[in-house]
């Protein structure tokens, strides 16, 4: 099946400011794809370009088979967008908000009524559906904004910072809703976020951006391998251990980090070499208290990517094999 989104060498500038530079990525059907980057990385501009709110300065885009420059309205009709702020009409009720956006999306009155009831129930808003949304809590507003984005049963959903400004409880609730609705409706989702935990929990693949450029793209496992090709073992000893040089020379060991005289971090090439490394450590007289395999977190991947240009990143960015 064709990709839902295909972006090739996208460029965009506001006057002299280069907002997007040579950005390429694709999003597959049913996938949750994350655009990850700090404020000003170009995530929101990318979403605007994908929706045809204005034309790009260069490169090519295809969204749901349409060129946003030519058929932006068609894309917007078949997609839903959750903007960074809930952007609700606070003097209107939830039902009135949904009706307004439903009509603009071309839905019939009956379709709007049925779908609104379904979403209000799904998002637990039915009790307050006839209250002005200005009286809602932040979490309720965000849930209603999500309902609005889902109103048309869109094939593609853009979520811009979906949990921004929410308290932890509301953020968890919104994340669970996104995961549930995605499972239920099989919608393709593009999430813009700088919330690493959210990206790690929700996204199948990620594109890490900085200053309008792509730094890396892939699944979390692929990104982990990109910044740290091996697997990390944290080893704690009962007594101080002095055989660091011998460890460094062991087969399958890529690098070492000493935490203290009684603990060590060892990067090994693969899971299969762990028993041999542990056995060799014992052979060197190490009194091992605990061995723990550690996966590098998305936060570590992200910070490393943001802070340095990794020599192997170009292969990933350009879609090369890992």
């Amino acid at each position, binding site marked *: 099946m064709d990709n839902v989104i295909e972006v090739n060498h996208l460029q965009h500038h506001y006057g002299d400011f280069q907002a997007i530079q040579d950005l390429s990525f694709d999003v597959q059907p049913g996938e949750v794809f994350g655009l990850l980057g700090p404020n000003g990385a170009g995530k929101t501009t990318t979403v605007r370009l994908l929706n045809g*709110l204005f034309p790009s300065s260069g490169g090519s885009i295809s969204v749901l088979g349409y060129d946003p420059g030519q058929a932006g309205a068609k894309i*917007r009709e078949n997609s839903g967008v959750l903007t960074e702020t809930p952007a609700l009409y606070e003097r209107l009720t939830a039902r009135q908000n949904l009706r307004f956006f439903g009509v603009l999306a071309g839905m019939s009155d009956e379709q709007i009524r049925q779908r609104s009831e379904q979403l209000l129930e799904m998002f637990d808003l039915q009790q307050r559906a006839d209250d002005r949304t200005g009286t809602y809590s932040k979490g309720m507003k965000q849930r209603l904004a999500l309902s609005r984005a889902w109103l048309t049963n869109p094939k593609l959903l853009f979520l811009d910072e979906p949990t921004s400004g929410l308290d932890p409880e509301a953020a968890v609730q919104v994340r669970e809703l996104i995961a549930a609705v995605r499972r239920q409706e099989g919608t393709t989702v593009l999430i813009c976020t700088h919330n690493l935990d959210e990206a790690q929990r929700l996204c199948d693949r990620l594109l890490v951006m900085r200053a309008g450029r792509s730094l890396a793209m892939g699944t979390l496992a692929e990104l982990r391998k990109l910044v740290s090709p091996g697997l990390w073992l944290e080893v704690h000893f009962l007594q101080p251990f002095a055989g660091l040089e011998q460890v460094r020379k062991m087969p399958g060991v890529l690098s070492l980090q000493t935490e203290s005289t009684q603990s060590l971090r060892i990067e090994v090439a693969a899971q299969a070499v762990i028993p041999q490394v542990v056995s060799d450590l014992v052979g060197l007289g190490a009194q091992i208290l605990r061995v723990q395999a550690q996966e590098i977190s998305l936060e570590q991947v992200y910070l490393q990517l943001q802070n340095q240009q990794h020599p192997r990143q170009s292969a990933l960015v350009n879609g090369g094999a890992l």
Partner: protein
Amino acid sequence: MSWRKIRVIAWKDILEVRQNKSVLVSMVLVPLIILVILPVVMLVLANLPGSAETLNDPDLQTMMQKMPAAIKESLGDMNDVQSSIMLMFGYLFAPMFLIMPLMLSASIAAESFAGERERKTLEALLYTAASDTELFIGKALAAFIPTLLISFVSFLVYALVLNIGGYPLFGRLWFPLPSWYPLVFWVTPAFAALGIGATVLISTRVQTFMGAYQASGALVVLVLGLMVGQASGVVFLSVWVGLILGFVIWLAAGVLFFFGIQQFNRKALLYQRAH
């Protein structure tokens, strides 16, 4: 172009305006002060004993001397009180009536266009499948329809106040004068359109409702010019002058709308936000 989408945009904006106290206050206060309170006070004073002497003020008589022949002729066989009331509310007040469509349309349009930006709802609106033209027409209608309705209702109320309050003085229904018909049904819609056109243009450049409203409020100078012109006898809003004035204002509104539509597109609105 979908009229259903245009209707829902106008419906939403009118619903929001109805809930906005600051806009509602201006919608009620302006007509109330200009078209009810002021005439009622004057008519009460005119019906008091001794009003003839008060209204036989030399300044008022000098002003009456300066009036065009058509006005002097229509006031010819009236006494001082009758002619003063008719001069004031039948002729001199006519330009004042035009303040209403201008201010109302400007305040509703500012709420509708700049208000979206101020309340951060603009972006969600721009992500809908509605075209720029549908958004523009829907929003313009949301300002135009209530302005016209309120203007027409205010005109009816004004006519009632003048006829009821003036009956003891004139002994007949004397208002509206013929010159008011083109003013209300031709010049008033033109001024409403002018107010909307100016506000749309300004709204694409300012961030807040108040900013847009205050800037477009400068158009009131036009009405003040008409008032001074009529009070000094330079202009007389006769039927023909009303028709020509309406035509000129419609043209000006058309020019503002033309430029407003150029500005009202997703790129311009978001590009401005990004800076």
